[in-house]
């Protein structure tokens, strides 16, 4: 209980610092929302009028405090660029990003665990070599590159799918999921490589432990030892790693959404920074930061639960 309380306090402090930093960063970059809104029709009078309408003419700290107070009350404000409540905008975009993250996470877990176990227990030298090389390659290539290549190969050359033809969740759930599979795979590939590598070396390490020989000498079968003893130990770091991956996948969507033109939170974030749409940027950054803190906390808890040595 004490641990949970501690974590919650650290969550609040983190969010406070992150939001303050994001806010201050906005004060440093040139241009403000009125520039984009008025475009080439701007006149000094119009700019001044719009600035006071948006409340941009007040001192920086007061604006931040205002934002903070309404945020605590659960009000995210109104987007300058889209003229609608940030919560309405996010209600549209966040499910897409969450779905993409979940898909990518499921693919990572479902693919990497069986492959990792197999790679860890096989004694074939050649298979081992191939795995090491493949792993390195997959880890080194960033997801956006996979994204661009697969858009070209599957979209333009093979014409298996149509890049940019995203179907919204409200239209068809399965249509949306099918469009998101490829980006989810692209996001998952480097994570799969890392998880496989981790699980493989973790299993190989456990295989050399004395308890394995003891179990062997007591007549247990290889697969029995693997299931009942080795995996139990070898999975601990992997589960933690997978949990942390969930955070990284979420932030990875920012770029992959650009590549596949998915109208999710990441694309909204990038364009909102360009538009100086402060309420939107602030809300998304706080959500992302909260997600990362929560995921890390979950990883800690899983670790405690799985590893008795940490429980004291």
């Amino acid at each position: 209980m004490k641990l949970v309380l501690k974590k919650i306090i650290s969550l609040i402090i983190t969010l406070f610092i992150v939001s303050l930093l994001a806010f201050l960063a906005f004060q440093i970059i040139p241009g403000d929302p009125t520039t984009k809104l008025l475009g080439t029709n701007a006149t000094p009078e119009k700019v001044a009028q719009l600035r006071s309408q948006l409340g941009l003419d007040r001192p920086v700290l007061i604006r931040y405090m205002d934002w903070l107070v309404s945020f605590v009350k659960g009000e995210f404000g109104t987007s300058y660029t889209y003229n609608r409540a940030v919560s309405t905008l996010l209600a549209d975009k966040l499910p897409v990003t969450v779905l993409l993250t979940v898909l990518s996470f499921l693919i990572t877990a479902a693919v990497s665990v069986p492959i990792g176990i197999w790679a860890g227990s096989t004694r074939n030298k050649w298979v081992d070599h191939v795995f090491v090389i493949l792993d390195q390659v997959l880890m080194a290539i960033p997801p956006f590159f996979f994204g661009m290549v697969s858009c070209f190969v599957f979209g333009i050359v093979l014409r298996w799918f149509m890049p940019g033809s995203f179907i919204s969740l409200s239209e068809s759930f399965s249509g949306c999921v099918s469009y998101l599979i490829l980006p989810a795979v692209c996001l998952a590939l480097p994570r799969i490589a890392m998880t496989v590598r981790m699980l493989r070396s973790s299993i190989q390490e456990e295989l050399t432990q004395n308890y394995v020989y003891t179990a062997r000498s007591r007549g247990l079968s290889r697969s029995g030892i693997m299931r009942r003893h080795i995996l139990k130990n070898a999975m601990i770091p992997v589960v933690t790693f997978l949990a942390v991956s969930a955070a990284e996948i979420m932030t990875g969507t920012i770029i992959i959404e650009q590549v596949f033109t998915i109208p999710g939170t990441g694309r909204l974030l990038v364009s909102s920074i360009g538009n100086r749409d402060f309420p939107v940027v602030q809300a998304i950054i706080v959500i992302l930061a909260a997600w990362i803190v929560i995921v890390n906390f979950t990883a800690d808890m899983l670790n405690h639960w799985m590893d008795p040595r940490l429980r004291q």
Partner: protein
Amino acid sequence: MSRRNIALLLSSAMLACALGTFSGATMVMADEAGSASSGDAALTVGLPQDLDNSLDPYQITAAGTREVLFNVYEGLVKPDTDGNFVDAVASEHEISEDGLTYTFTLRDGVVFHNGEEVTIDDVLYSFETCAATTTSTAVAGALSDIQDITADGDKVVITLPAANSSFLSTVSSVTIVPASYTDQATAPVGTGPFKFDSYSPQDKVVFVRNDDYYGEKPALAKVTCKIYDDANALFTALDSGSLDMAFHLTVDQVNSLSNGYNVLEGEMNLVQALYLNNARAPFDDERVRQALCYAIDTDSLLELTEDGHGAKLGSSVYPSFRKYFDESLVDAYPYDPEKAASLLQEAGAEGLSFTIKVPGNYTPHVDTANVIVEMLSAVGINAVIEKVEWNTWLTEVYQGRDFDATVIGFDAAYLSPDALLQRWVSDDSSNMISYNNADYDAAIEKAQSTTDDEEQVAAYKEAQKILSDTAANVYLQDMADFVVLNPEYTGYEYYPLYAVDFSRIRPAQ
């Protein structure tokens, strides 16, 4: 061992299944996009940018928003593809001999998209609201000059204190909207051939056919505009066949198009130039500006950036303005590096170096700037490109006038040379280059006040000649505008201003 192999096999089979359903699902979509049977034909279009924050016709600032909402909004009159004004919400209009009185007769039975009939009160309301709230200084200015506007039965009579030959273009920018409707910014209601259906930011905007349209009803039942915020993503979507149509494509994109779509060529209707800060040394010296004009070879610039497409310009008016466009100015400054060098020497500006601020998100302008830098270095001018974000460009260059030179394109917000020329009048708030020429101001004044068509054309041409003679800017080109259309559709036509008319597009049979 074998069991683990099976597990591996199973998981890869699962993945293959997932990929299988995924390609299956999109195949269905491909069929949907391809069905172009008349009556319920639907077109999917790619937009290269998101819409403005307000869709209220008087609040729209971006040309990209204006050009698609052209299908939703109409004034009493509206421009046609030849640049003439035809009756829209008005069934006829009459201009008095002295050019002071305009009489518009309201068309019978025009219905707004929300089902209400258009009344004279709506027309008066629209003129009032537009005058009070429009973001366009030019339209606001023209409307504030109105002496009197009255309703007389089904007629609206507008009286002007002095004749204004481009007043009809102002009337066309006054969109007729319902007086009793308040959601114009998010759910626009007009009288045009298409109704606004829905808008999802960064995703799409959907228009459906207005079945109550008084004119010829569009062949398309639905137009879905998908929003892309990057030209490459839009192009990939187009090439893969998920879009039926895209506009404002570059020559490079058209050359790499592989799906067999039809390519149409027109002009962007933009004045692309190397705009020079006339208030800042050494560009406050006419000779230096002229030297730059001689030093830049526009023909090879067009060849390098546009494969020879695009139209050369000699002043701030583009060719679609037909009778107003002065073709003789196009070659006013032939390529002559020696003359450029001697002019620079005369002005004491040898070894000139300056910065060109270019908005980095507009690739065509960046490409043009690159070619210019090369050409200038050949005559010993050292120009450096500084790529800035669009917001920064607007603040520093457009509003702050803090720049040496910039490459950009200006479009006409309405169909009058004023839309392009008014900005260089010395006290105009959007006179970015701080151009200051009394003769020019007089010429524009004259053009705006005369009722005689010939006199007006002559005055606008004179203004253009002054811009050219004084080398206000280095005028480059009106870039080629490529429209790519699925061969299952036909009927796209170019307008002399930023407008994409979906009502003319129909299934090809």
